Structure formats: C-alpha cells, structure tokens
C-alpha cells in the first residue's frame, strides 16, 4: 500500500529504524552461519556407521599380571558371554569403533613399495566379530575359528587373512579385484583379503577416511582384554547390568570394568560436535528472542509516542486494519533493509569463518531461509504493538494535550 509516505516518515526518524535494521542484519549473519554449522554437525553425527550401535556394549578385564592361563581365561569369558540370555554374539576386540582410541598401520599393495602404501585403521576381532559389530559381508567369507589366533601384544607377527571395507578395497585395488588379493605390512608379511564388508566406521570419527577399516582375526595375549557384546533388540541394558558380576564370578582375581554401551562411546566421541550444535542453537534462540524483544520495544514506544497521530489518522478515516497495516508495512520495510545488509554480512562472516577456521562454505539457501524467517519474526513481533495502536480511540485527536 502506502510505501512511499511510510518510507519518508521513517527517514525523518531514521535512528530507530537504522538500529533495528542493523540488529536484524547481524542477526541474519549469525543465524545463517550458525544454522549452517549446526546442520553440518548434525549431518556428521547422523552418518550411517554400518554398526549395530544400539545393541553393542563393551567390557574390559585386567589381570594383576600376565599369566599362562590368559588364553584359557579369554575362551572361558567368551563362552560365558555368548551363553548369557539375550546375547546374540560376542568377540574379543582390540579397541572399540567410534571410540577415538584405536590403531592404524600402513598396508602395502606391493611389498616394500612406498608409493603403494595406504594407512588404515585396523581392529582385532575373532570369528564372531562381524556378527557382533553388525557389519554386512558383501563378498568373500567371514573369519572361521581356525583363522583366529593369539599374539603377544608386543609381537609384530600378523594373521594371514584380513577382511576390509568396500571403500578400502577399492582404494587398495581400484580395478575391483581386491577379494583374494594380498597386501603386505612394512616388513613384507603378507595378508590375504578373504572378505569385504559393505560399510563400517573406524575409531576416529573426525578422520576423513573413517570408513577405511581393516579387520584382523587376532587376539592379543597379556593381562588385558576387551570384549564387545551384541544383544538381542531391547535387551542390551539388562545384559550390561549383570555382565560385570558374571565375569568377576568366573574369576575374582582380576578387575572387570569399563562396561559401556557403544551408543555412549559414540556419543562421547561426537560430544564436541553435539555441544557445538546445542550451544549454537541456544545462541540462535536467544538472538531471535532479543531481536524480537527489540522490535516489540521500539514498536511499542513508537506507538506510544505517535498516539495523537494515530488518533488523527483514525479521525480522518483510517480503519483499524489500516493502522495495523501501517505498522506492518513500516516494520517490513525496516526488516527488508536489515536483511539486505545482513545478506552481505552473512557472506562476509562466512568468508572469515572459512579463512580462519577452515569451516565449510555457507550454502546459499540459508540466506533466503533466514530472510523469510526474519520477515516472519518481524511481522509477529510488531503485531502486538500494531494492535495496540489500532485500539487507540479516534477521539484522542480532539484532546488538546
């Protein structure tokens, strides 16, 4: 409707309008960039892991000293774990996926050729390892009990067969003939790829190649062992509650500790990302609240100081909707000025974030979304004061003071 006169009235009182516009500009810049970061973190957290995260937990056992019966101990423990009601599978495992702790080593496609080496995260598991982790075998075969053996923890000896993830198989052998092929360690010991699993996340969730994983049929000797246990759906907590006591009962001369669900372990690994998402969401919410309050405050004041003017407008024929529309249009103009400046500011802020912190570039769609949100916010915030303005009696106009 009457944009020009509203605009010219605004220009005569520009400080208030400029302040709100600036506020909206900074708000848009912060909100778009923060929303962008939040989205990235949530995407990261929500990636498929290839693991049955919800039904896996770990438990550790430590002896006071190394002893000869350690291998017997592991076998007995595994037998007990696998026999617990509600347990689907259990394996000895060197470290937990998604935990932030683990091992990596070089794999050579050509023995001794430095150019052919690929570093990959590896896990030591037994014949129930794949079943326990819930990863899907897509080619070749699973480990058999005869593949699995015990190794001194300080030993450099390697099992002869390994299973790798599909991504790693393709990286090692781009021609697609990974199954049955052999890779070597730095000392030239061969390892045959006997199976390929579809997808699995390794130890370090912030690593770029988190899904390049090697699985070895290997259990370390020593005084420390970690077990991963997968339960039937809905029975994880029930098994977790008894496992420490059951294992301790089997042999009290050791420490059974570290019962933690994979869900909790993964959640810790993503703690910083989740925290960032939560903190930024809080900042966005507060920012929007502050901006809305600012609009309400200034609009209320503007209504109060324009009481007479509004009364006069009513007296000369403005209806209530006309008055409401006036304030809506006025606010919309201010918001529009603010988001115009804010779009530039959002891009500038993003450039700074990209340069200084190597954050990803802002997807442009966040800007129109942010603009739409701020338009809506402005209109909602001004609705109250505008309605109060509309309720000013036209008879105010004839009052002298």
């Amino acid at each position, binding site marked *: 409707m009457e944009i020009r006169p509203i605009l010219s009235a605004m220009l005569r009182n520009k*400080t*208030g309008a400029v*302040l709100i516009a*600036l*506020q909206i500009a*900074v*708000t848009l*810049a*912060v909100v778009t*960039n*923060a929303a962008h*970061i939040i989205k990235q973190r949530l995407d990261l957290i929500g990636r498929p892991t290839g693991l049955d995260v919800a039904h896996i937990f770990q438990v550790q056992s*430590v002896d*006071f*000293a190394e002893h000869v019966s350690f291998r017997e101990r592991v076998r007995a423990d595994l037998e007990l774990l696998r026999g617990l009601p509600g347990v689907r599978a259990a394996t000895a495992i060197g470290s937990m996926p998604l935990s932030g702790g683990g091992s990596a080593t070089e794999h050579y496609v050509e023995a001794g050729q*430095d150019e052919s080496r690929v570093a990959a995260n590896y896990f030591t598991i037994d014949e129930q390892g794949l079943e326990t982790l819930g990863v899907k075998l897509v080619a070749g075969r699973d480990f058999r009990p005869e593949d699995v053996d015990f190794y*001194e*923890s*300080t*030993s*450099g*000896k390697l099992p002869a067969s390994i299973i790798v993830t599909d991504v790693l198989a393709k990286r090692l052998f781009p021609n697609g003939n990974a199954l049955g092929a052999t890779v070597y360690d*730095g*000392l030239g010991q061969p390892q045959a790829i006997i199976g390929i699993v579809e997808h699995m996340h390794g130890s370090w969730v912030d690593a770029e190649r988190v899904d390049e994983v090697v699985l070895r049929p290997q259990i370390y000797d020593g*005084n*420390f062992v970690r077990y991963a246990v997968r339960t039937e759906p809905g029975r994880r907590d029930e098994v977790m509650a008894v496992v420490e006591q059951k294992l301790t009962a089997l042999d009290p001369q*050791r*420490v059974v*500790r570290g019962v933690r669900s994979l869900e909790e372990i993964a959640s810790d690994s993503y*703690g*910083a990302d*989740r*925290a*960032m998402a*939560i*903190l930024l969401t*809080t*900042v966005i919410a*507060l*920012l929007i*609240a*502050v*901006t809305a*309050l*600012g609009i309400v*405050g*200034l609009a*209320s*004041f*503007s209504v*109060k*100081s324009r009481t007479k003017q509004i009364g006069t407008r009513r007296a000369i024929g403005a209806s209530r909707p006309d008055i409401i529309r006036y304030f809506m249009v006025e606010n919309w103009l201010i918001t529009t000025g603010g988001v115009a400046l804010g779009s530039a500011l959002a891009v500038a*802020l993003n450039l700074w*974030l990209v340069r*200084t*912190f*190597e*954050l990803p570039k802002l997807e442009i769609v966040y800007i129109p979304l942010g603009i739409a949100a701020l338009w809506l916010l402005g209109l909602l915030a001004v609705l109250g004061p505008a309605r109060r303005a509309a309720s000013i009696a036209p008879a105010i106009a004839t009052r*002298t*003071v």
Partner: protein
Amino acid sequence: MLHYYLKLALLSLRRNPILSALMVAAIGLGIGVCMTALTVYHLMSADPIAHKSDRVYAVQLDSWDVNAPFIDARPEQAPWELTWRDAMVLRESDIAARRAAMFISTFATRPEAEGISPSFVITRLTDSDFFSLFDVPFAFGSAWTREADQAERPVIVLSKEKNEEMFGGENSVGRKLLIGERYFEVVGVLDDWAPVPKVYDLNNGPFNDPEDVYIPFSLTETLEAESTGNVNCWKNEPIDSFADFLNSECVWIQYWVELDSPTQVEEYQAFLDNYAREQQRLGRFERPLNNRLTSARDWLDVRRVVQDDNRVLVGLAFMFLAVCLLNTVGLLLAKFAGKAPQISLRRALGASRGTTFLQHLVEIGMIGVAGGLLGLGLAVAGLAGVRLIIDDYERLARLDPFLVGVAILIALAASLIAGIYPTWRACSVPPAAHLKTQ
C-alpha cells in the same frame, strides 16, 4: 548531587518498568552469553603454571621419518614426544636444574588391606622432579627422591581422590598398595591439584583429570609398563618383545626440563643438537636438525589447545553482544526521546547541558550494573549448562573471579557506549523546544 541523580535515575527507571526491564535483559543476555563463551575460552587457553611457565620447557627431538614430517600439515614441527632411548640419554644430562620423563600406563590395583575390591589405576610413570617442575602440592608426605629413581624403588604418590577411595582420605604414607604384581609404598598424597589445561601431557586429553597415581619412570622396564597413551611409530622394524619396543623409533614419552636462564637454554639447546648430530652419525635422525625447546607458555599455543569451535563461539558471542547493545541503544533513544519535554523543562530551570548529561549517564550506569549482575547470573547458569552438555569441560566451565571483574567492566563499558549517543541526543534538546504545546 550524585545522590540526587541516583534518585532521579531510579524514578525514571520505575516510570517505564517494561522498557527498563527490556534494557537490563538485553545487556544481561549479551553479557551472559559472552561471559560463558569467554570463560570456557579463557580457561582453555589458561596457563596453569603461570608463575614459572617461562622457565619450564618441553623438549622435542626430530627423530622422525626422513620421507615425511611428523604432521603433514605442519612440516616445521618435530614429534611431540620422544623415543624411550632418547629420553634415557637426556635423563643422564645435568644441565637442567630439573628434568622429568613421563608417560601414562594402566594397572590393576588393590590396597594391602582386605575388603576393598581391585580397580584400575591410571598411572603416570615419571621422575621425582615432576612434582617440583609443576609445583604439585602435597597433603601428606612428599615426592620420592632422585635416589629412589636410581634405585628403582617401588614407591608411589597418590592423588587426593585415589587416597580417599583407597584409604578413606587419611594419611596413608607408609601404607602399601598392590600395583600389578608388586607392592608399592606410599610416600606422598597430593592435595587438590588439577591443572587446566594439563600442560605436561596434552597428548592424552588436555582437559582430562590428572592421573590416579604416580610411580618412578625408572621402573618402566622392570614392570614392562606399556603406554596406554598416545604412541606414534613410523619405522618398519620387527617388534617382538617389550625390549624391542623400548628400542624402537616409536615416540611416546613426554619430556620436560627447567632452565633458569637464557644461558642455560642455549647450553641445553647445544646439548640436544650435539646429541642429534651424534645420532646422525650412527644413522638415526635423518631429517634436518630440528630440536626444540618450547616454554610451557608457548607450548599451549604450539599444540593448539584452544579448539577452533571455541574461537567461533567467542566471535559469535560478541556479535550477539553487539545485537544486544544495538537493542539497548534503540530502547534508550526511545526512552530519552519520550523524556524530551522533561529535559527541556529542566534545562529551562537552569540545568546545564553537562549536568543533564551526567544525570542520564548515572541512569545508564544503573542499567549497566543491573545488566552486568543479571549477566553474571546468566553466565553461571550458562556454564552449568555447558558442563551438562560437555563432560570434558567439567574443569573448564567455572566462573573465575578475574572474569567476574571483566564481566562488570564489559557491562559498564557496553552500557555507557550504548548510552552516549542517546544521552547526547536527549541533552541537545533546546530548553524552549517543548515548553509550548505543539
């Protein structure tokens, strides 16, 4: 006169309670968010041994692979940690007043007394100087001696928490504790001690709690104590025994020295370089000479302890504060514009522009102080929230007195900055302007 201004300010604030509340809320929110972000940042980048951090140095030797730097993205850096064999040689030098090699390991433990179930202890194997290097406070007993280091005596220092757990918090000096398969004698119990960040070992969680117990580094071989911390290896070498591992090129030991003068620093640097050259002749240290001494103060920067996320949050928090201030400026302008007739009257009655200005600054100052107090309250709540969200930040998200001062200052400065323009505008109302009706 100040008393009069305070009274006027209170009256004025009460006249527009909603507007005043909005301003206090805006400043309070801005300060609260800023302080929360700043506190975490400040503590993250704090120097836990500030009084001597320019005399305590981290030692780096570049024993890494000739074909690639330790960190691809930072080729100028040497490995953060040392090999066992290099650490053993450095321990022989007496150039530094104090020196300590260290790493963490994990053992099963239980006290001699019956009835307390065995548990894990995260153990730091280190030298006796560790405690004086980092000014570790003792509640009972003291550190073990250098003589105990040399004699590989099974002595142990407990953290306050572990002593609480094992011995109910009483003076346990002289008591025995089973670590692995050997009994260790308690020689000291620490008082409250939790350096943030854990400057002496940034490799294994810079904001983790300190270890449960401390035992002599010289026992490493005897105990076959494997590192349960960060271990990095580059060389393809057969490792079939613990002795092989100790002899390998794997780096896993943190090494610290105290050097009291620039001369000592030079002397020590020369010692490191000489050692490296000697090793080069023996076929090790194939990379260019890159041995580093970094003071504890600089070490935190070099290791980039403060996470980018926290810097981003601080940046965004200040933008948030800017929005809150813009908000306050707008509200103040509105409020003072409404007071124009009154100001005009006061001016007509003889108030100078200066006194009017002062009167309003007092009012703004009151808003600032109220906003600052609210902000502090919100920061306390905000930090509690952060602790709830991030377990690691248990020690980071605590308000410290220095920051409380900063908060009040920022609040005052912010509200004055926000207030100057509106006040100036209000005070430039000519005395006669509002005395007539329109």
